[in-house]
């Protein structure tokens, strides 16, 4: 058992426990914080996989952006202090059984396959990412890249429009 493996198991435990707590906590802030820890755990996983760039992006965008956004929206919409309502027993039982069953099913599907490596991964540097993503030849992702930027613009405008307060009509 190498140190590497132990670290992996720790990170995995962190991710799964945080996720489980995030979906089952009764207090909403606690739920958000557990989500935060989960995100950090996933970033750690990316670090362990030696994809530093992705890990950095994860932390910057997810942890620093999305979770913060969620916390802000909790401020805007939640009556601080009261707990979240519990789901009905029937609902949670049914959903739990369905999820469990699906998990087992998918795991079985995964287990059937033999995964063999193609060739080992080289170093993942930002230069390499940039050159391969943004080239115009076969295999380049420059078009999706541009489309995503337009998508972000559209999302921005959309959010503003949807969440805008419209003044009530003066009678």
């Amino acid at each position, binding site marked *: 058992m190498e140190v590497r493996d132990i670290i992996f198991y720790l990170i995995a435990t962190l991710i799964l426990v945080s996720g*489980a707590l995030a979906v089952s906590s009764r207090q909403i802030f606690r739920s958000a914080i557990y989500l935060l820890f989960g995100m950090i755990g996933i970033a750690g996983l990316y670090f362990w996989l030696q994809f530093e760039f992705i890990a950095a992006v994860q932390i910057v965008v997810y942890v620093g952006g999305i979770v913060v956004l*969620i916390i802000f929206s909790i401020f805007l919409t939640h009556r601080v202090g009261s707990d979240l309502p519990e789901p009905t027993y029937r609902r949670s039982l049914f959903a739990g059984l369905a999820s469990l069953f699906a998990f087992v099913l998918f795991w079985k599907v995964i287990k059937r396959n033999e995964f063999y490596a193609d060739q080992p991964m080289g170093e993942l540097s930002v230069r390499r990412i940039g050159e391969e993503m943004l080239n115009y030849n076969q295999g380049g992702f420059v078009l*999706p890249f541009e489309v995503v930027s337009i998508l972000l613009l559209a999302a921005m405008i959309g959010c503003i429009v949807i969440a805008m307060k419209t003044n009530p009509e003066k009678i």
Partner: protein
Amino acid sequence: MEIGLPHLLFVSTALFFIGVYGFLTRRNMITMLMAVELMLNAVNINFVAFNKYLWGGKLDGVFFTIFIIAIAAAETAVAIAIIIHIYRDHSNIDVEDADSLKF
């Protein structure tokens, strides 16, 4: 045992179905959104894992992950905007009360 692809896939699958359970169970819309984030992250782990262990020469999984992170951010922002709008109309964000699209 050597940590390999199946371990990572286990983690991602488990995380995904934890997210599914949360989505189906939670009543508050924001907590549902958090469950969706968990699902997306599970998918990200999947892409990255496959890229590292199966396709060494290419970086397509990484690229997909980057795109998914960006789009998830956009989608979260739009979802929260909608949730705020609903909060203004209903003054609570219980998903059981937002059922006006029924027959």
